[in-house]
């Protein structure tokens, strides 16, 4: 699953740590999310999308 977290985080001038705090996870989780190496729960995906002010389906793109 691809995502635009890194791009949007940069647009919002947020560090990984700041975004992690906003969504209530550890920084490592944001690192893995950005790399596309971790598939988040629906709750975390929703929180991340909300923090980055974007729709969840625009933030995460499912391609198989």
């Amino acid at each position, binding site marked *: 699953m691809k995502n635009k977290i890194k791009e949007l985080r940069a647009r919002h001038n947020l560090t990984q740590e700041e975004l992690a*705090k906003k969504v209530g*996870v*550890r*920084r490592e*989780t944001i690192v893995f999310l950005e*790399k596309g*190496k*971790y598939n988040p*729960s629906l*709750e975390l995906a929703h929180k991340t999308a909300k923090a980055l002010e974007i729709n969840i389906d625009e933030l995460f793109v499912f391609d198989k």
Partner: protein
Amino acid sequence: MKKDKFRLILMAAITLLVLITAAVYGFASFFKENANMASLFPLGIILLIILFMGFFIIRRYKDVKTGQPLEDERSKRVVTNAAAKSFYVSLYWLLAIGWFEPFFAKIAGQEHLTASQATGGGIAGMALLFFGFWFYYNGKGKLV
């Protein structure tokens, strides 16, 4: 946050208790009549476990200090995956202890392993397997 700090202190206290137990065990093993290097082998495993715990606690302490949670959904998944896999593999490890008991006894310089040695070896093996799998899943990223 306060709860996380309390949990970290609890972890540190448990690690300290294990360290004290290891020290007592090492002291007792060293001064036993038929002491050999093999009798100090379990001590090595305990020290490895303490080392891992020390590394884990220091890392988590730094994170908690910067306001990060002690655990989140990913770290919980890492622990769950590591625990499940280590439990599964440890069944084979326990079987191996039973099958190769004469071999392990020979290493320990005895004819047979005592019940406490076999149990201790089993538990230490499970702990090492858990730490190994924890490192693997923590760096892997893709988690079920």
